[in-house]
């Protein structure tokens, strides 16, 4: 184990430096959520306070923007997950004409810069005379989330043994019963993973949102607009809450996963 690794100390030392680079801004965001307010200034450290945490919606607009992001995230995740899962099942399970064309169609949005996706869609709404708002943001987010859902769920469908479904059919289950009692439950871990990814992407999207939001603000858009004058500390509070919540969720999932592995290994 010792012989073939490149420069023993180099890898861990370099990794620690990169991890600090990666995590330092997160620490900074959390620290500044406790910054005392002086005018609009949340750029320099003024002193410790819990005011921002006690008065989360104290800054104008910040909670509206935040709840808009939640609405957009939830609606686009639900729609994108349903549509993407159906496509993923079709792509893995069935052979049909234009199969590779459809795969390409779903891959392309991931290989297109967001600014191009955002601008293209904005022209579309402009020429169709659709007024920009919460609805257009959701329509845009569903579009780019579908691709990611398909990728994640496809991997899960591909690892599934079709014999289990066949066994169900042999035991006289109707196609509907097979789907809802066998296929869907076995795909669930993939579908949940896809939904979480989709929500994270939607919740944090700025570029596509900026082109298609009109006067409506989402959380990232709020930060972008406020950046010139100084983002209120309440934005740091909300971001910190999301961060801690998501982190706890992931840690729980990981612990459960590792425990399951250990249990399986000991059997």
């Amino acid at each position, binding site marked *: 184990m010792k012989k073939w690794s490149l420069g023993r100390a180099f890898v861990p030392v370099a990794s620690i430096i990169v991890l600090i680079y990666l995590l330092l801004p997160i620490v900074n965001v959390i620290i500044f959520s406790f910054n005392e307010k002086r005018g609009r200034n949340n750029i320099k450290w003024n002193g410790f306070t819990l005011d921002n945490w006690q008065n989360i919606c104290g800054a104008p607009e910040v909670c509206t923007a935040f709840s808009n992001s939640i609405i957009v995230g939830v609606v686009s995740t639900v729609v994108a997950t349903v549509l993407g899962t159906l496509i993923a099942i079709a792509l893995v399970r069935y052979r049909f004409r234009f199969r590779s064309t459809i795969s390409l169609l779903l891959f392309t949005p991931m290989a297109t*810069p967001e600014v191009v996706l955002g601008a293209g869609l904005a022209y579309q709404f402009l020429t169709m005379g659709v007024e920009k708002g919460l609805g257009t943001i959701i329509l845009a987010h569903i579009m780019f989330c579908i691709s990611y859902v398909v990728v994640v769920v496809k991997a899960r469908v591909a690892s599934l043994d079709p014999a289990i479904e066949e066994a169900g059919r042999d035991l006289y289950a109707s196609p509907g019963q097979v789907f809802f009692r066998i296929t869907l439950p076995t795909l669930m871990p993939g579908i949940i993973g896809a939904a979480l990814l989709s929500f994270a992407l939607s919740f944090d999207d700025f570029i596509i949102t900026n082109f298609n939001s009109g006067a409506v603000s989402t959380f990232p858009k709020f930060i972008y607009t406020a950046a010139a004058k100084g983002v209120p500390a309440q934005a740091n509070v909300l971001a910190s809450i999301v961060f801690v919540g998501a982190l706890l969720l992931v840690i729980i999932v990981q612990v459960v996963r590792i425990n399951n592995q250990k249990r399986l290994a000991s059997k």
Partner: protein
Amino acid sequence: MAFTAFAANTEVVEQAPKKGRWIVLLLLAPGIMYMLLFFVTPFIQLIITSLQVPAEGQGIGDYVAALQFTNYWAAIQEYWPQILRSFVYALIGTVVGLLISYPLAYLIGVRVRSKPMLQGILLILVIAPFFISFLLRTLSWKQILPTEWMGTDFSVVFGLVYNFIPFMVLPIFASLQSLDMRLLEAGSDLYASPATVFRKVTLPLSMPGVVSGTLLSFIPMSGDYVNASRQFLGSIDTAMVGNVIESNFLQTQNYPLAASLSIVLMVVILVLIIAYVRRSGTEDLL
């Protein structure tokens, strides 16, 4: 979680092709219709807009259909510094990102493979940035770094590299994770130095991860306009093509110009990707 998208080394069960046209149509129709309506049509719309000319009377944002191909030439002539800058930034950012991400991916995928707990913790640390607004994180660098560094080529590339580290680490990790250790042992048994083993065995076998990591970083980097904008890490001197597209679309409402720049950006990226993927010999990846 997010990294399941990259770490999809799941066992593939051989599945017999099935017939059933109606079911396929039922499964595909809603999603594909959606993509045709909100992805393909907008793309065509973008091309149509890029060829438009100002309407008679010249109200702001009023354009009529035309086939003005010189729009492209005019856009490139006026904004070639920003176009060039975008690709130089993205190229440097991708290379630096690759160099600093590889050791971390190697640590997680190879060194600590036998310690699932530590591996899990390190993976969580890598995906942690996904859980907190990337705009706030980027803005943080403005507070952390010295003020006089702001608005320079350095600060923008610094921010770009920072934003895309997880997108580089995760695919490389996924490749290295599935690496067969016996191959490395065989290399050293045949008296190859650790450096040679790395160059001749580890690196080539991790190429699929390197290719997807570089693409996942390079494409969004070249279109990014957050890092380069003035209220973040940039200045007027660091404007990228994304900044020009944004200001021409949302402020000046010069739609044909913004559209033709979008198409130029897309075409250049496509050409670079095809050349890169050909060279790295991983065509089957796309």
